[in-house]
């Protein structure tokens, strides 16, 4: 096992060495959180390169086109990818969210139609869950869909949709049973993005850039067969997706965090901020916090019963990352208050601003706390 892992690590390393070079060399370090808008065209090319190298769907069953590799192998891949400065993935929504959902709930026809596009890096996906009135209260879905003439017709609005303008497809939760409420009567539909009935409008965030979009559905259509699970059972399918919104990619994420921390530390050394005991204390605490995140991820990944671990992990890393963003600008002092012309922000400013999103998306801190309190600790639900 050990030797196979070591072999795998050198395989990953040498592939990244050879391929993250030449035409792709300038992608190193690009497109991470808060920088999703950078070089999207080139990163789409990069997805295809990854796909042709067999680096997408590492843990998927071989029968479905994956490589059937263990989580230890996947941890190695994500760690090496991060270490090499691999660019932010454009295909992760398909690979990490839709793919596992289809593997669990899709028909053989759906798998045959959609998995190859994800594995080859040729079809991009976006997620149509949140709505203006369905944020933390995700079940309050208003987008509706009806079956007419062999097609689903969809009307409504989704929001906070990452990469919608680059996606070929969207997985959408829509209300397909008129008059139903909450978790009932929802269906999980796969909808092509390139059609007249869909309009994508970027949301300008507090960073001045746009990672997220609003998506408007005005009699958008998709084939009647493009429903995952039974019609009306979409909530169950969608919850499966949320459950996989974490996993082995955590380790790659933490290496990214380490790089960000190292940059803050270097800045503090360069401008002398580290000589202030209050600053050096905060740096040490941030370093310690990152170690603790790593220990916690290592401990929960291999364990048999990670009940509630996903919610705890989200809460811990989101808070840690937000605090690092604050430390980054505090270390710079007055320099952090000035931007380059055109509101071109520094890495530290971007980190500071974008990490405000970490404690909100993917289940806000408050929702995570509710889930931990009720499911893990068994405290009673409020009336």
């Amino acid at each position, binding site marked *: 096992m050990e030797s196979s892992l070591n072999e795998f690590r050198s395989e990953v390393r040498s592939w990244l060495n050879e391929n993250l070079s030449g035409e792709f060399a300038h992608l190193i370090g690009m497109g991470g959180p808060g920088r999703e808008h950078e070089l999207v065209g080139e990163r789409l090319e990069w997805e295809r390169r990854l796909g042709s190298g067999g680096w997408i769907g590492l843990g998927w069953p071989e029968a479905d086109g994956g490589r059937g590799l263990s989580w230890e192998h996947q941890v190695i891949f994500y760690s090496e990818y991060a270490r090499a400065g691999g660019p932010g993935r454009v295909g992760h929504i398909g690979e990490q969210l839709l793919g596992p959902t289809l593997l669990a709930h899709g028909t053989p026809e759906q798998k045959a139609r959609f998995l190859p596009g994800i594995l080859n890096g040729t079809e991009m996906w976006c997620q149509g869950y949140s709505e203006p009135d369905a944020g933390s209260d995700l079940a309050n879905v208003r987008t509706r869909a009806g079956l007419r003439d062999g097609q689903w017709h969809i009307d409504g609005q989704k929001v906070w949709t990452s990469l919608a303008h680059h996606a070929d497809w969207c997985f959408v939760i829509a209300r397909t049973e008129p008059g139903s409420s909450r978790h009932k009567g929802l269906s999980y539909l796969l909808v092509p993005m390139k059609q007249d009935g869909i309009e994508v409008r970027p949301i300008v965030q507090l960073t001045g850039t746009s990672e997220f979009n609003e998506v408007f559905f005005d009699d958008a259509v998709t084939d009647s067969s493009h429903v995952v699970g039974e019609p009306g059972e979409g909530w169950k399918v969608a919850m499966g997706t949320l459950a996989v919104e974490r996993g082995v990619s955590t380790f790659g994420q933490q290496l990214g965090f380490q790089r960000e921390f190292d940059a803050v530390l270097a800045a503090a050394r360069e401008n002398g901020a580290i000589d202030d005991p209050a600053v050096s204390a905060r740096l040490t605490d941030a370093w310690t916090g990152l170690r*603790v995140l790593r220990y916690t991820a290592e401990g929960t990944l291999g364990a048999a019963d990670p009940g509630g671990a996903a919610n705890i992990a989200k809460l811990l890393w989101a808070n840690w990352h937000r605090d690092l963003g604050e430390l980054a600008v505090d270390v710079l002092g007055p320099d952090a208050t000035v931007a380059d012309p055109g509101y071109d922000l520094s890495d530290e400013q971007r980190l500071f601003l974008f990490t405000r999103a970490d404690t909100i998306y993917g289940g806000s801190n408050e929702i995570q706390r509710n889930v931990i309190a009720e499911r893990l600790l068994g*405290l009673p639900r409020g009336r």
Partner: protein
Amino acid sequence: MDFSGLTDTPEQAELRTAVRGFLASAPENPWKRLTGELGLTALAVPESLGGADATLAEVMVAVEETGRVLAPVPYLPTALAAAILAEAGVEDFVPGLADGTLTAALALGPGVTTFSGDADGGKLSGTVRNVLDGPEADVFLVRVAGALVAVRAADAAVTPVETLDQTRGQALVRFTGAPAVRVGDGDFADRAEGLLWTALAAESAAAAAQCLSRCVEYLKTRVQFGRPIGEFQALKHRCADLAAELESAWMTAHAAVRAALSDPEEFAIAAPLAKRYCADAFFRAAAEMIQLHGGIGFTWEHDAHRYLKRAKSTQLLHGTPAELRTLIARRAGLLPA
């Protein structure tokens, strides 16, 4: 709250169940039975010296379970001393510590001790304060410049002191030319200190988890405004934050345990980091235990104050949070060594 399912091997889970069940039965003469019947101080001692040939990881399971309920037994220092002496290949005292007829205390912090002697032994002089479980100990492991030595309590002047935390006694220990056995060099003394930090971390993580469990039980049953107060989000969220901190504390303590067994370089960081992180988490858990219990938590009768005092004392002994932060910064290369 119990995070042990995330870390225990099947054998460790069995050991944990046995120790927990035994302590819950409110046994008479617990020390005698923990050592004799259950053989807990012999866990990390080789069979040839009367031990069970297990590892420090099993000792930590017992440290956690005795710590969880603040059992008034000198388990932590005695089991650790037995393991440390056995690891050093020093046979003195080991059989007695392993069968529980002797107890130990660890005087590893900065003292004012001087040691003159060689590998065969020597004389120890000086004073060490705040020696946990010192009043009853038969053997002291003492850190001196460049060495770790063992001394019989009969050769020292031991003065019990009144303590804020009444769950664990302390002594002021004076050595005046006391005969001392050399256990190891300065590096070995560092390792012994790392093991003590690790044990205090594990004990703290377990006691903190107990604080949270007690809070959760109380919030489910205490009724105000016509409903169990656990329905109130303000209280739920505090428990959830605590659960997140305590799970990560548990994992951090166990990372130190793993490093103690297999990775000396990592251990140099993980041990002080775990002690600081887990003791801080324990203190927050104990403080929350009082607040979430309201008035009853402020009474002498309720045992929340015992956890609070134990947590604060653990935080402040064997490296305060501030001292350990500086140490970690140096060892991690954040600040010049």
